[in-house]
């Protein structure tokens, strides 16, 4: 194969022809669309003409200047390769943009319902890949586009972005793109004789999908960055769940503690009630005894005709009865008080609650609770309602309190 120098020398006589001929050779090597080839040709011709003019000012002849100018461009094949590489980067980006636009157009055509449905019937969509010339032909796309297409891949970033619709681009999308560009794009840029290792990638986040166009190296690094982000998100969520579980455990411990105190209070009040009941029985016995004594003594005094003694016995009986009445009143008041305290302990402010959750710690409905039934039935029968006709009924055992379930709101204790 002849060199450029030999070729241009052979084609003489004019530099104009030489330049034109060389450009013809380059144009054939470019293997690009016609409009791109013509643009490159026009630009290089302008460069060469300018260069020739400058070289001629230094004293070169036109043919010499033409040879020198063309020589400065280097090997024609190498130059053509450089243009093809540069144009391919643009072509891939064009494909990327067109693919995204086509996909978005397809989604808009389908509508949200069919996009989200797993059994969507395929409909007419722009074809992929885009043929040279940029035409977009309608064709039927497969229902599953797959995870990768040539250098174009997609990643699920639903754990990293918050969006309300499949086509939304939230602020997290731009942050994610910037992060990946900064971390995953390898472009050795300082004082190195090496070429850039890869073309600049293209990234787009649509909804919860990240589309990436890039070389294998970029995809590996991007996947590593995404995995790291998912790991960090997972850890954060784990921490939040842990904190919430700890908070709930704290709350339940507080409930248990308050419930234990309440039960102790109820037991104490029961004990006091039993004590008062015992006292009431003793009072009754004493009253009966006083009455018996009075009757017996008055009977004897009457038999003996001792009216003075009879009157004296009557006065003493009055005094003792009054004292006993005071004692009875005192017992009734204390029983009333204990009754109120027991009701408060069960249904009043002492009942522990957490964020509105108020477990029914006695389980069954109040009507089934013998203690509450008795308290209700005897309420007001003390100081207001007159003397007790009989000894107050013993307190029947309330249902045992069930263990509080581990998770609030999962059910009653029974």
């Amino acid at each position, binding site marked *: 194969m002849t060199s450029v120098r030999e070729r241009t020398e052979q084609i003489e006589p004019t530099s104009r022809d030489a330049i034109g001929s060389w450009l013809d050779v380059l144009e054939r090597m470019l293997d690009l669309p016609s409009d791109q080839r013509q643009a490159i040709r026009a630009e290089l011709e*302008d460069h060469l003409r300018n260069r020739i003019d400058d070289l001629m000012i230094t004293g070169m002849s036109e043919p010499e200047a033409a040879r020198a100018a063309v020589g400065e461009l280097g090997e024609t094949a190498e130059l053509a390769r450089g*243009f093809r590489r540069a144009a391919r980067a643009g072509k891939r980006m064009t494909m990327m943009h067109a693919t995204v636009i086509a996909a978005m157009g397809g989604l808009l055509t389908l509508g949200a319902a069919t996009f989200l449905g797993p059994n969507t019937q395929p409909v007419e969509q722009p074809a992929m890949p885009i043929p040279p010339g940029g035409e977009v032909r309608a064709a039927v796309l497969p229902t599953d586009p797959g995870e990768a297409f040539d250098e174009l891949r997609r990643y699920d970033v639903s754990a990293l972005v918050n969006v309300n619709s499949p086509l939304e681009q939230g602020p997290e999308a731009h942050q994610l793109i910037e992060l990946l560009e900064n971390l995953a794009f390898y472009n050795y*840029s300082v004082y190195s004789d090496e070429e850039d290792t890869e073309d600049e990638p293209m990234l787009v986040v649509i909804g919860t999908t990240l589309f990436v166009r890039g070389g294998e190296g970029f995809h590996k690094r991007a996947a590593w960055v995404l995995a790291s982000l998912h790991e960090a998100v997972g850890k954060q969520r784990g921490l939040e769940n842990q904190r919430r579980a700890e908070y709930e455990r704290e709350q339940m411990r507080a409930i248990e503690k308050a419930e234990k105190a309440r039960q102790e209070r109820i037991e104490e009040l029961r004990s006091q009630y039993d004590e008062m009941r015992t006292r009431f029985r003793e009072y009754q016995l004493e009253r009966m005894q006083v009455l018996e004594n009075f009757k017996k003594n008055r009977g004897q005094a009457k038999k003996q005709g001792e009216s003075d003694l009879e009157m004296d016995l009557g006065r003493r009986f009055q005094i003792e009865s009054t004292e006993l009445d005071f004692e009875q009143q005192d017992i009734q008041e204390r029983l009333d008080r204990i009754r109120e305290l027991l009701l408060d302990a069960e249904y009043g402010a002492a009942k522990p609650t957490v964020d509105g959750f108020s477990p029914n710690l006695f389980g069954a409905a109040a009507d089934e609770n013998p203690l509450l039934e008795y308290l209700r039935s005897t309420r007001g029968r003390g100081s207001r309602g007159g003397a007790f006709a009989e000894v107050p009924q013993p307190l029947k055992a309330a249902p045992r309190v069930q263990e509080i379930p581990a998770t609030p709101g999962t059910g009653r204790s029974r």
Partner: protein
Amino acid sequence: MSDAKPNQPRDMDGKLVPELSSSHAEMLVLSVLAEGSAYGYRITKQVTATSGGSFSLGPAKLYPLLTRLEKQGLVTASWEEVKADRSEPDAPGRRRKWYRLSAKGRKRLEGRIEAHRQFTALIDAFIGGRGGGQEERA
């Protein structure tokens, strides 16, 4: 320098002029365009002039680079019809492609300049003014 590439330019003394890496080439081209619009040949001359001949950005490197920059949206291009000064009156004109720095390109340039400054500062921290410090040691 002993591994000179074919057609690697030389200065007036015949010494090989170091070739720029792609990243530096990009930074210099964007810097030139930051001063104003320019076409390809003017850019090469500007680089040579500004560097005092120390840098050479040949057309084999420049024009594919400009193609890439245009595709990436870092520069925009427009065409002008010109007539060469020395051309014959009846000769057809030719087209000249002018480049202008885009907003995206300006942002890219700022980023590269900042990275370059940081790297330079790091290197300076290591060498700490040596080269001029030998007199002090003596």
